[in-house]
């Protein structure tokens, strides 16, 4: 337990309203979105200035207290679950200022607690575009997006969070401020520590500010939906589109199970017999969009699409995307527990991956709905289960182990965008190497000698 004296110190530093020590409050910071065992922290603190953030880190370091940083707690790999019961959770949702949006130099400077969609909306008002759009963007924070290198639907054409990080300021484990990157496109001053902090899952430092790249928004978009009677053909169409040198901004996939479930729920007349559908959007200059859409339509038909639908107006387009938007909510309603995976393979391996997923579902007698980002090979096999049923949940865990095996065999990766956290830590070495683990651990120990920063996450310390 944290001593009363320490609680008092924090209350003096941050104000009573920003220190949560009651049992009920602490219990609500014991979980995130991952299906893992909660760990109740000793204390939760919420700095409201970056100076306070630094002081918190320093104080915790001096007292040898472990710390876990938390934004919206929407993490899907357990990265924001406290390591131990003596952990102090540091909230960033008191640090929500957008400090600068620069239309001339195309960047924004933000505090870590800014909500992704708030930034996207603020820059859109100035006719600028911040593309990363993780599924949780309505609540997720920029600090969390950077720490997890969050992806989203636009990854194929626009990249992911790491492609927009120009600079990061962070506190190291001892509370020293570290600065890396700049407001310039080019910057080679020192190590690329901003790059190192990206995807570090709260293990190397605590982000206090970020400089993010903005781009001009596309002037036009065009969406379409293609039906296939065979997953293989859908995957070939995806490869065909890329081979024709078209990079759609979104290229999404829904399997038959997901299509039927969504249609049951929305009654929107989706093709229930289709083995798969692809939802595609191209964007850019209007002329380019028209040309590209025509090529995409041709490629889809050449690769055996049984039908291609092009929405006539905004309303039809919204309806078309609703199928994708509703995929997870609908699957989540089927059973009490939803385990959302994100094993990712090279896009040419999607048919092999889909075949394996279906075989795994049959072998372990589980229901899996699969949808995801076909364009970048990032599928979301979604296990529909009930964690209260110990026997069934054990089968889910075994199935997930096998799923990772397949993904790695297909030269894919454990996680496209959800992170390693504690959920996938045991698999790290299998994808990488013993050396990778040792190198990462040595790096951590050098930077965090007391082993206080999110100690059990990623490779451990």
């Amino acid at each position, binding site marked *: 337990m944290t001593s009363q004296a320490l609680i008092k110190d924090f209350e003096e530093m941050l104000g009573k309203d920003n220190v949560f020590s009651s049992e009920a409050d602490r219990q609500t910071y014991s979980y995130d979105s991952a299906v893992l065992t909660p760990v109740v922290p000793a204390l939760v603190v919420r700095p409201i200035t970056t100076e306070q953030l630094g002081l918190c880190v320093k104080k915790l370091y001096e007292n040898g207290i472990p710390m876990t940083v938390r934004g919206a707690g929407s993490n899907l790999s357990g990265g924001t679950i406290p390591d131990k019961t003596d952990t102090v959770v540091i909230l960033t949702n008191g640090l929500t200022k957008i400090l600068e949006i620069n239309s001339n130099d195309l960047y924004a400077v933000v505090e870590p607690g800014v909500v992704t969609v708030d930034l996207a909306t603020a820059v859109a008002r100035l006719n600028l575009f911040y593309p990363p759009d993780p599924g949780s963007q309505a609540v997720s924070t920029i600090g969390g997006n950077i720490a997890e290198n969050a992806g989203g639907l636009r990854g194929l054409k626009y990249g992911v969070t790491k492609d927009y990080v120009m600079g990061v300021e962070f506190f190291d484990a001892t509370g020293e401020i570290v600065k890396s990157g700049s407001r310039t496109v080019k910057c080679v001053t020192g190590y690329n520590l901003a790059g190192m902090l990206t995807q570090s899952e709260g293990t190397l430092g605590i982000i206090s500010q970020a400089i993010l790249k903005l781009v001009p928004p596309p002037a036009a978009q065009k969406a379409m939906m293609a039906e296939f009677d065979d997953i293989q053909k859908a995957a070939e169409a995806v490869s065909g589109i890329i081979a024709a040198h078209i990079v759609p901004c979104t290229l999404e996939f829904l399997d038959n199970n997901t299509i039927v479930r969504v249609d049951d729920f929305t009654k929107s007349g989706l093709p229930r017999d289709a083995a798969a559908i692809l939802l595609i959007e191209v964007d850019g200059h209007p002329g380019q969009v028209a040309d590209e859409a025509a090529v995409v339509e041709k490629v889809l038909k050449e690769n055996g699409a049984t039908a291609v639908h092009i929405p006539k107006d905004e309303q039809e387009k919204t309806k078309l995307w609703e199928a994708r938007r509703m995929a997870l909510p609908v699957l989540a*309603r089927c059973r009490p*527990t939803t385990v959302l995976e994100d094993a990712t393979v090279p896009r040419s391996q999607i048919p092999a991956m889909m075949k394996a997923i279906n075989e795994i579902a049959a072998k372990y007698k589980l229901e899996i709905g699969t949808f995801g980002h076909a364009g970048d090979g990032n599928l979301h096999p979604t296990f529909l289960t009930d964690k209260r049923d110990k026997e069934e949940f054990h089968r889910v865990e075994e199935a997930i182990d096998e799923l990772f095996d397949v993904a790695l065999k297909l030269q894919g990766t454990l996680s496209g965008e959800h992170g390693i956290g504690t959920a996938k830590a045991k698999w790290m070495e299998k994808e990488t190497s013993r050396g990778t683990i040792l190198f990462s651990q040595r790096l951590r120990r050098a930077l965090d000698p007391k082993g206080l920063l999110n100690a059990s996450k990623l490779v451990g310390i």
Partner: protein
Amino acid sequence: MNTLQDLARRLMQLDDRVIGCMKCGLCQAVCPMFGASGMEADVARGKLALIDNLAHETIRDPQAVLDKLGRCLLCGSCQAACPPGVKIIDVFMEAREVVTAFLGLHPVKKMIFRTLLARPELFNFAMRVGAPMQSLLFRKTGQAQGTVCAPMLNFMLGDRHMRPLAKKSLHAVYGAINEPRRANGIKVAFFPGCLGDKMYTDMAEACLKVLRHHNVSVFMPDKLACCGIPALSSGDADGMIKELKVNLKALEKGDFDYIVTPCASCTATIKEFWPRYADRLTVKEKNLVLDLSAKAMDINDFLVKKLEVRSAGNTSGAVVTYHDSCHLKKSLGIAAEPRAVATANPEYTLKEMAEADRCCGCGGSFNLFHYDFSRKIGQRKRNNVVATGAQVVAAGCPACMMQLEDVLSQNNDSVKVKHTVELYAENLR
């Protein structure tokens, strides 16, 4: 329920619904309380976790959990946006009832819900005595809103700016109404709600005027009690049922096609909550409740669907902006109809505000117990209202109107607050 184990066992009946929460945390985006406090225990995900923990006895402090459950406007925004579709409000209401039953209802609440609100003659008497005394206590504040504040009652009312009680309540003016059916043959029971009867009588009279204009006959008994939502929100189902029985007695003799209310919360309660507690009533009462539930309509909905009131579609005139009450939009799915009613008066043109369906922060008794947060949430609504430049903000719920008047008056704004039906009635002879 004597022991914590009993309480836990009872709460386990909620388990199948609570487990549906996938902890995605998307409720944070829409929860007004979380927007004001930023605390996880204030958002649905946190509260569901605490209910789950109390059911599994990993927290053994029911009072702490009940306090957290109380920090909620029951606006239903989370439920409307919940990806796995957890019936969050049902769970919260039931949990409040179960934990309150275990801990015991606060004596003041018990007095209010089971005695004052369930006994129309007593409530009416108290108001009749109270109304003339107001001028001694109140000081005028908002010109546009007609609000007052009461420095001498600061210990009780804080620095609220509120509408004074009507000099004469609606039923004191009209007594019991039971008109014969007229030409078009429609007859409605008019349920003004406590605020419509005792505070916003202008609004209630505007409703009667509109009904008369459309040749609708009215049945309005004079012994109506509170609809029961304040009691239910405080976990006092017994108090609510007591009030419900008084209402059933007052309504059972009426012969009407619909029961119409100008209060979104009353409509939602009659339509959704009354039937949910019908199993605790006699068979006769239960049938009456189900009948009333089927006949209950929000007045905007009634005017548009049954009387074909339409927007005049004017693009000039005084600007009105419309606030979506949670009980109208999120509980009953009514959003287009009140907008049509407000602009059925050609003197007005509608300008939408940002976040029109974000809760105003009143939440009924939430406002009494968490006034600081209520004001903070209300300020965001006020900013959105003022940003439209509208002269009038309309709502379909007197509780929202009360909150809007308070926050606008506190900011010295000139925006008037009106019920949608009041705007429509202005232009009728």
